[in-house]
């Protein structure tokens, strides 16, 4: 399955439950402040705890948290499981640009061009400081660490142009260390490969 989908599902699950909890806590808090204001409720009750309630609100959040962990983990495995037929591109980060090396010896800077419909494996490293390869449209982010080979992959399922940005602060022009991913048709890709 396309990891973009599973990650988004995990995202909405965690966000949804969080919103319910947040609204619940806030509404109850405001309601208590109004209902039990001193002018209307001069005498307070002497309640110091309730072990059943406390056990309940320890156990239930634990279960919710574990479910979130599980959903998050399973969506993560999708990012790490590269389909065997994936096309491999070597990505090298340097201050302040991205270099892409293709199987046939083709090299490009600042532009990653891939054919539509293919899974693409990116082998990522850096030649100077730590950078972060970020392709938000496909939910992938992989740090480029000198002397470390890391990887990520995505399914190039839709023709279009997408942003690539650097996410690990790397110096003066960190915010300008961007590149474009162009997903193109097979024909266009072949033509692009042959250009110089």
């Amino acid at each position: 399955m396309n990891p973009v989908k599973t990650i988004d599902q995990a995202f909405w699950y965690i966000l949804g439950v969080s919103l319910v909890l947040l609204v619940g806590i806030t509404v109850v808090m405001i309601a208590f402040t109004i209902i039990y204001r001193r002018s209307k409720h001069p005498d307070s009750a002497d309640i110091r705890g309730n072990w059943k309630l406390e056990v309940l609100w320890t156990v239930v959040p634990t279960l919710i948290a574990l479910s979130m962990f599980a959903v998050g983990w399973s969506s993560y495995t999708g990012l790490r499981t590269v389909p065997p037929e994936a096309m491999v591109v070597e990505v090298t980060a340097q201050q302040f640009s991205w270099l892409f090396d293709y199987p046939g010896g083709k090299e490009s800077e600042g532009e990653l061009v891939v054919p539509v419909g293919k899974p693409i494996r990116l082998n990522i490293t850096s030649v100077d400081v730590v950078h972060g390869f970020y392709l938000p449209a496909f939910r992938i982010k992989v740090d480029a660490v000198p002397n470390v080979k890391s990887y990520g992959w995505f399914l190039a399922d839709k023709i279009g142009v997408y942003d690539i940005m650097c996410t690990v602060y790397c110096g003066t022009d960190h915010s300008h260390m961007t590149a474009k991913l162009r997903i193109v048709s097979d024909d266009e890709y072949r033509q692009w490969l042959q250009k110089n």
Partner: protein
Amino acid sequence: MDAIGMVKRQSFYETPSPAGLKGIWAWLLTRDHKRLALMYLWAIMLWLCIALLIGLSLRIELMWPGGTIMKAETYNAMFTLHGVIMIFLFVIPAIPAVFGNFFLPIQIGADDVFFPRLNLMSWYLFMFGGGFAIISLFSGKGFPDTGWTFYVPFSVTTKTNVSLTVTAAFILGMSSMLTGLNFITTVHRMRTKGMGWMQIPLFTWSLYATAWVQLLATPVISITFVLVILERFLRIGLFDPAKGGDPLLYQHLFWMYSHPAVYIMVLPGMGVVSEIIPIFSRKSIFGYKAIVYSSLAIAIAGSLVWAHHMFTSGISDVSIFVFSLLTYLVAIPSAVKVFSWVSTMYKGSIQMTPPLLLALAFIYLFSVGGLTGLLLGAAGTNVYVHDTQFVVSHFHFTMFGGTGFAFFAALHFWWPKMFGLMYNMKRAYIAVILTTIGFIFHFIPMMILGLMGMPRRYFDYLPQYATGNFLAGFGGFMIIAGVGLMFTNLLLSFREKNLAADDPWGGTTLEWSIPSPPPLHNFVGVPEVKSFPYDFSMVGKDAAPTIQTRETDERTS
């Protein structure tokens, strides 16, 4: 009240300690925990104001694409400064050094901390560290520009004055450790007769849990900073892949301290809220023991989750599994605390005051911070939002919305006790509301920008991020206006001289049983310890329904 009013009251302001010190020396050489707390207070408020203004300059810069009021180099130095000052000179020391020093001994019925001289030394280390930080800006080859995380290899290769900045952080770490050591010893050895572990007020409990983290985690960052300096001068190659070193080792060492450090930052704030909610609900805290144990659980579990800052760094999938799981477990004790606070208000008799409003804002903002943390803790979603504006927004909700608001709450809560003066309530409310709305207006756009994929530490941005950055700027201005009004209002209390009663809120812990401001020796007689620190059943009906202020100034009579 009247009986005490007849007697001439000498506060610690009128009694130097050690005796005989005059003028400025009565402060600079003092060993009185209360004077030291105030010396910390002024220094820390100054740092906060500086760092807030730097933050505003960043926000203005980002309101329009490209360079607006500064260059990229300046911007990078500014966000580094903002982070370093906020973290090391405000958020970490704020509540323990100011309110911990002032109230921890009083809450346990002690005269002072166990090591008063060491306490003075901590203050000097704090000031030296701050001084070093300033010197590091204006010496060497320019402002440090690494971000407060000082990631290698960048921090080793950049030409700017990183060595001196990390030296400053090293010295500040010493100060933090010694304060922690002092608090632990004080809680163990100085508790008054009758105060067992389950009679300790929750603020002191939170400081005690924090102190252990300060003592045990800070050495890790100190050593790491020494290694960065050695790397810069001697090229020992520990973090240099060309020499067989590993940049990820640095990240591990850094976060091994800096993640526990976020609990150093927020636990004392939780302690403050645990004091405020019961007093203004006039009702016992709900689940005292659960709050105590959750503080300890946060301190312990919080020390074992550091690598969740590194999910995209190339660490193994096994580590990601383990650290993601542990991260979720540390969320539970925080949730327990929030539920306990809200339940404390159930069937209470709630009196709205500025400190309570701030505490409620804390609960809301901290909940947002905690819940957004859930998206960061899950491995798959973490990859998407890590190192984006979302993270920046998330930790501002916990650090500013959490610790910052708790600091403001503590200021308004204990101001009458520390100075014997009450501030103007109306202005305080306006300031709180302005700050809260400004905060939301600032950090919600930032959160959305992060979800749209805008990375952090960006001087410039792609066109799709323009609107959010423009809007967030207004929030920035509102925060500055709110905090400015808040501090002005507090300072005006010195001129308005509305004297506060000894127990203006109707509290049950020991600091409310002594005069405002307290005398040099906090307690005249043996403090009377309740079997349960939050027993409001005696405060009940005969207590004054409104906030008490004193009519005349007995101190000058």
